[in-house]
């Protein structure tokens, strides 16, 4: 009997001592460089400003716009319901909560698409799926959505269709802009990973 206990004591000691040598594993899984490269050369991560505009207007619940510019630029102008995660704080634990939610499309944008693309590469490397980049960034947004150019007469019919769409969108964003910003200040719908289970009272 005592010999068995001695044996168990030793097992427990070894297991406990073993925990002292455990290295903290990173909280995310990194993907292979080959996979990353393959993903980078695919254009599928880009969404156009038209698509983003449509999703905003449709109030698509799966859209999560992430502004990777600095705080000042974000406060001056931002897309509706966007959250601000400056590129330099992308790795902070708070920022991590926005990524990797099932069924949510995270769309990065910056002034152009370089910073957004960099953010995308980093999140992709951390193993998060469902992240996208708004092609052309806010510059493209202004060009296409806020001040769309009328196509020349010899352009194909689809160009006119697109123009019509953009004109409509422009009305939506510029015409109701004031109302929009107020609404934004009141309530930004932000989805985050749930931090803790609501445990009602102790034992």
């Amino acid at each position, binding site marked *: 009997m005592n010999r068995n*206990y001695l044996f*168990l004591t030793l097992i427990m000691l070894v297991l406990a001592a073993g925990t002292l040598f455990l290295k903290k594993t990173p909280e995310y899984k990194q993907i292979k460089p080959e996979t990353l490269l393959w993903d980078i050369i695919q254009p599928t991560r880009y969404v156009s400003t038209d698509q983003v505009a449509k999703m905003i207007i449709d109030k698509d619940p799966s859209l999560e716009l992430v502004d990777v510019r600095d705080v000042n630029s974000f406060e001056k102008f931002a897309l509706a319901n966007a959250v601000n995660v400056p590129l330099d704080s992308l790795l902070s634990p708070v920022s991590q909560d926005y990524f990797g939610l099932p069924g949510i499309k995270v769309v990065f944008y910056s002034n152009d698409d370089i910073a957004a693309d960099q953010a995308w590469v980093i999140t992709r490397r951390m193993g998060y799926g469902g992240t996208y980049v708004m092609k052309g960034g806010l510059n493209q947004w202004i060009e296409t959505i806020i001040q769309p150019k009328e196509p020349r007469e010899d352009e194909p019919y689809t160009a006119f269709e697109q123009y019509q769409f953009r004109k409509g969108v422009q009305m939506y964003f510029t015409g109701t802009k004031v109302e929009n910003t107020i609404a934004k200040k009141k309530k930004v719908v932000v989805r985050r990973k749930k931090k*803790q*289970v609501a*445990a*009602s*009272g*102790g*034992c």
Partner: protein
Amino acid sequence: MNTQTKNNYKPNYINPYLGGVLLGLLVLLTVYITGRGLGASGAVKSTVVTTADAISPTLAKANAYMGKFISGDRSPMYNWLVFESLGIFFGGLLSGIIFRRIRKPWVEHSPKITSKTRLIFALLGGIFFGAGSQFGRGCTSGAALSGSATFALGGVIVMLTIFGTGYAVAWFFRKLWI
């Protein structure tokens, strides 16, 4: 032969270390599935709130403590810990059946005290434990066991004070037990 077995009667409990390992694994499994540990006193709290709410809803809602646990749409009994505590009862029943420990209702007490004394002190002990578990945000299973196992400071505080006090006052209550 008969008296021999009677004197050497051993309740066939399982090995305490086996019980401990199983309990530890259960805590682990529960944390893995639900994100939190076991509990027991929370179910009694829910019962208190529910009965108070049934008898006098206005008074219960006005109560600074109970009011927190009353939400309009759901009964406080619709709670994880209440279901878990029901399970505790049935688990005990199952074990009692398997190990043949179920008897007609009886009072277990030290031969030095009467049943009545035992019951009075059981009631007092319950009152103390009930009130204490609210101060401690949990009892031995919720705070001391699950709390300590998840390295929560509060769990360790509760565990040390329960057992520390127990040893400190054991002498005064020795007649009850030995």
